[in-house]
């Protein structure tokens, strides 16, 4: 049974539009009114007329794009009336400040647009909050049963073991500036590493921001001052920046590292399977837990998830949004 959703949400190549409230969710191009789930560059763009987002997401956008990133902004708190619908923001567990957006029309199905989300404990953000809804919009970045992310602490331990195996070689790990870097640092602290961690310049501002917000990341230094262990944006690993370090062990932290051909293509010695997205067991368990009438799939490996929904007798459709890079790989987007 397909729900009557005409006039409520329309998928477009550049994002999801809600005619009843005349707003867009995570639009790729400047729009008069945008609701933003989280601060990754493939969801949060500059140049909208008005932005509604969590306080943290607004702050992150201001750091990345400057205070002028939008004409007007509003912090999402409680339930907010827009046009003929009510919207509210709830934690998604993906990165600091990331939210799902719940849309409640006066008449019609309740929709939750989850954005990117994760079910793993993450010391740098609030956990995902399951919300009752009729339509659940999910990502499918890792929507294949081959993706079962291992315990991230085990991956941190792998890095520490490599540092013990090769104490004389600097370890440089590729990780994106927003989310992955801070998660990796927090994991290393949890795993007992309490020495200073070196950061590439491009990662410093957002990491300091996390610290200002009270997230304990320990001692962070510019890369050359803590060469034993460095985190850098992935493109820096193949750039002249990396040339100053003698015989480094290059690593890369991403959910894609769980598949060997993907890891090989990165040409790193130390692939670490650390992801801020739901893996297969998590996305399927989430769909079972929320049990919506219908599942909409935004981006990633839709085919796998569609097949699973069919086996479960769960109604599902792909939205074919084009603009979303998955923030775990995004080769052209240094920080997404």
């Amino acid at each position, binding site marked *: 049974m397909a729900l009557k959703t005409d006039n409520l949400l329309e998928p477009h190549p550049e994002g999801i539009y809600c005619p009843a409230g005349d707003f867009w969710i995570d639009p790729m191009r400047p729009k008069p009114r945008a609701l933003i789930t989280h601060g990754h560059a493939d969801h949060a763009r500059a140049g909208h007329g008005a932005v509604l987002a969590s306080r943290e997401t607004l702050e992150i956008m201001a750091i990345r794009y400057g205070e002028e990133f939008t004409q007007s902004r509003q912090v999402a708190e409680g339930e907010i009336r827009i046009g003929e619908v009510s919207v509210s923001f709830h934690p998604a567990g993906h990165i600091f400040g990331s939210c799902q957006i719940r849309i409640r029309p006066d008449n019609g199905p309740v929709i939750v647009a989850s954005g990117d989300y994760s079910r793993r404990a993450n010391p740098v953000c609030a956990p995902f909050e399951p919300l009752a809804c009729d339509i659940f919009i999910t990502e499918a970045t890792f929507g294949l049963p*081959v993706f079962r992310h291992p315990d991230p602490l085990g991956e941190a331990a792998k890095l520490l073991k490599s540092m013990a195996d090769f104490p004389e070689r600097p370890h440089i790990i590729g990780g994106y500036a927003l989310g992955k870097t801070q998660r990796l640092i927090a994991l290393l602290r949890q795993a007992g590493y309490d020495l200073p961690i070196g950061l590439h310049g491009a990662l410093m501002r957002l990491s300091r921001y996390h610290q200002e917000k009270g997230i304990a990341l320990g001692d962070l230094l510019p890369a050359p001052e803590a060469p034993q262990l460095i985190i850098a944006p992935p493109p820096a*690993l193949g750039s*002249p920046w*990396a040339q100053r370090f003698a015989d480094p062990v290059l690593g890369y932290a991403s959910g894609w590292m769980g598949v060997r051909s993907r890891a090989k293509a990165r040409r790193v010695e130390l692939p670490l399977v650390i992801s801020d997205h739901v893996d297969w067991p998590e996305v399927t368990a989430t769909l079972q837990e929320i049990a919506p009438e219908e599942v909409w799939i935004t981006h990633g*490996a839709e085919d796998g998830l569609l*097949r699973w929904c069919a086996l479960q007798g769960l109604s599902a459709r792909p939205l074919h949004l084009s603009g979303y890079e998955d923030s775990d790989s995004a080769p052209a987007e240094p920080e997404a």
Partner: protein
Amino acid sequence: MKAFAALLERLAFTPGRNASLTLMRNYFAVTPDPDRGWALAVLTGGLELRHLRPQLLRHLVSERVDAQLFAISYEFVGDLAETIALLWPEPAEYQVVPLAEAVALLSGDDRAGSTLARLLDRLPKDERFALLKLATGNLRVGVSGRLARTALAGIGARSLSEIEEIWHGLAPPYPGLFDWLTGGPLPQVSATARFRPVMLSTPVTEETLPGFDPADYAAEWKWDGIRVQLVCEAGQRRIYARSGDEISGSFPDLLAGLEFEGAVDGELLVARAGRIAPFTDLQKRLGRRTVSRATMTEFPAHLRLYDLLQQGAEDLRPLPFRIRRARLEALGEISPRMDLSPILPFADWDELARLRADPPAAVIEGVMLKAWDSPYLGGRPRGPWLKWKRAPMQIDAVLLYAQAGHGKRAGYYSDLTFGLWHQGALVPVGKAYSGFTDEELRRLDRFIRKETRDRFGPVRQVTPSLVLEVAFEGVNRSARHKSGVALRFPRVSRIRWDKPAAEADQLSTLEALL
């Protein structure tokens, strides 16, 4: 097998030889027997495991995973064993499974694969992957048997030569080996026809040669085949490559009908009626477990003898080369497929230089010099044996693609693909990784970044404008290369910043050398 799986995973991503040695050393040092012995057997290729057919693996996974989800997953992952390892249901709780158990299972007879499935049920992902890679027989960790043995030499008091001396007398899981490596008693060595560590030479050039006295040295041609050791003891007949790997299966024609008892060192070649064939003919015989009669007739194996290491019960290795050579000559003909490598008469280095400049056959790579008084020492001792190779061949090629290097060259574009002109276009002919100084490396890196025309993943295509002078040891025909030729040991001898790309060489220059 947790530590073993972690080692395999790490080795698969480690390109550097030294880093691989460190990882293996650390593994061997802390892993208990017999698991480390089984791991050593896997790394050295010393296990004959039963390989499972892909059909069977597909059947096993079909009992646990939806066929359509499997198909989508397999298409994404691209490797059957890996797809199955990733898809297989996770065990409820972690259990320690010794590598020995996996080896025992794969050595047994389980045609239906049901015991394999039950073991997979107990293993976490990395260990499932290791098990399935063992079961399908393509480990691909990029480690040679010799490198694994070199790692053994690093964990204790024994040298690589000492290890190789006993290696072929040991069988997996090598009881007593690790104890001996760290100072314990010599393990029981049972087998006959063992490998003896091969004596290698160090290079000399025109410049360094005058430092040696010509009267101290015997000279021989350096033949372009593969260096082997042939051992016949108590009915066992074996041929070893210089790495210590046994290659008897490829050369039954050489071993047939031998009456001799002992061990000889020589160059394995293909020869027809006394004429030595080019290296490409020998390649037709290498890397085969069995060889057809037709191949043996078309590419007959021949052994050119260099040295006598063992005669009957007597170990000749401590004797001087002069005596060993005399004893080798006194043996007479061992087989019609063997002859002596001739000793070249020369009075001084100038005379030898003239001989080297004009060798009687194309398959001669230079000359070998052996001190008359040198005992046969495994490894590469400095001084007693010298190789004076003929000058390498060179070609001017154009840089086409570049990829970043690893380790000390991380962040630098140092893996270079070069090409030659053919009908007005540049055709890739090979890759070179070395031959430049650090200063040149930095300049090259700047050039590549500046001249990048396109990118394919980690590979940069550059404007074809830089000429590289590439040195190499030979040219072979190759069906795998688009150009139809493959170079042996190519390296950059000079970067010709001055030379226009249009003046680089034609592909036909290489074809003429075939």
